[in-house]
């Protein structure tokens, strides 16, 4: 399902006007982005948790030049699905 289909389905499901839904959609993403950028974890019951994980700096070797390269630490957005969705997904046999 791509973004367009998803938005269409959202409009069909909710008893709201299309422009309100788009506004809500945008605002939700803005709020999520702000919260995550502040380092908060967003916990959505029955769906899962979005949180930041810090990846430590590391040294790798360039395969062809054999140079050691220091890769700086970074923050990565991580999603952990909730138990209910995990078990529901596990039951799917084939798509």
């Amino acid at each position, binding site marked *: 399902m*791509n973004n367009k289909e998803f938005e269409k389905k959202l409009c069909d499901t909710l008893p709201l006007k299309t422009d309100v839904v788009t506004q809500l959609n945008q605002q939700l993403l803005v*709020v999520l982005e702000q919260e995550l950028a*502040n*380092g908060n974890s967003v916990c959505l019951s029955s*769906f899962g948790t979005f949180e930041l994980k810090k990846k430590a700096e590391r040294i790798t070797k360039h395969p062809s030049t054999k140079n050691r*390269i220091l890769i*700086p630490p970074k923050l*990565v957005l991580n999603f952990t699905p909730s138990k209910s969705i995990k078990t529901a997904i596990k039951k799917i046999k084939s798509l």
Partner: protein
Amino acid sequence: MNDKVTEIDIAKRINEQINVSEPIAADFISTYFSLIREGLEADGVVKITGLGTFKLVMTESRKIVSVHTKEDQEIPSHYRITFTPDKELAFRVNEPYAHLTTINLDEADLKEEPIEPIANAAREYFDDEIHEIPLPINAPVLNKDVESYVSDADQDDLEVSENETQPVESPEPVLSSEPIGKKKSSLSSALVVAASCLLTVVVFLFFYLAIPYITDKEDLQAQDQPETEQPFVPEVPPEVYSDSIAVSDSSAEVKEPVFEPAQEPASLASETIRYGSRLTLLAQKYYGNKHFWCYIYEENKSHISNPNLIGIGTKIIIPHPSKYGIDANSSASVEKAKSYSRELNNKVYKD
């Protein structure tokens, strides 16, 4: 910061921003995510612009041994959810570390050429010596050693040439561990001279480049032998890399900025560096953009040698924005600060 945010909190935030009541917003959020779930169950992929892609991935069945019963069990193949954040979101989230770039640690070491096996023996011999020698007089002492060994070897050679008529084998040079013939000994001595000269240059270069970063002698030794597989501790400016967000947050909260009265436009405030303080954080706090850290450094240059290594307890003066033309809303000003800080960074890493 570092709190758990729930649907209710998000609904509240949405309600604050736009004219939609809280229950409707909460309803919207739950529908939103249940639709993602439905889409996943139906299609296996849900792509949302601004958030990311959820995807179902097949995990193959695998055999395990139960910890309790010690019996073989099989976990059947099943689907699991993977999430790839949107590029923009991933970038936004990584902003505290966005100014860091990858560093090539081996640029200096590149000059080291492959050395012949016989020279390696000499190299090992010298390596032991190098660790013993204190830093400042390193190069001269090493050279002396080299000379003495060279003269030894030369003397051997001379003796050999004088006693050439005699069938007796010449005394072996100090460095070679294997029995070596007359011609070989002169060859090996030449190699040893070449190798030791090269080594001296490399070691000198290394010390010259690395002294500002290294304080620990053990680090030095680890660095000196890149071929041996010792766990290598990178010489990372601790302030840039080592602290997590949590630490910096707490320090930011603890800090109480002392705002000075308006009569003194020269400085905005003064701060004391604590554990986890960073110039970028201060710049973010006072000017609204982390790139302006370079001006704080500029103002305090006299008592900070390395912006990445500021001693705890150092007093930092935050200059008034007008002094350096700091304006977080003007992109030209931000760009200027960016290029200046890049320049500073390069300078620091080169030193």
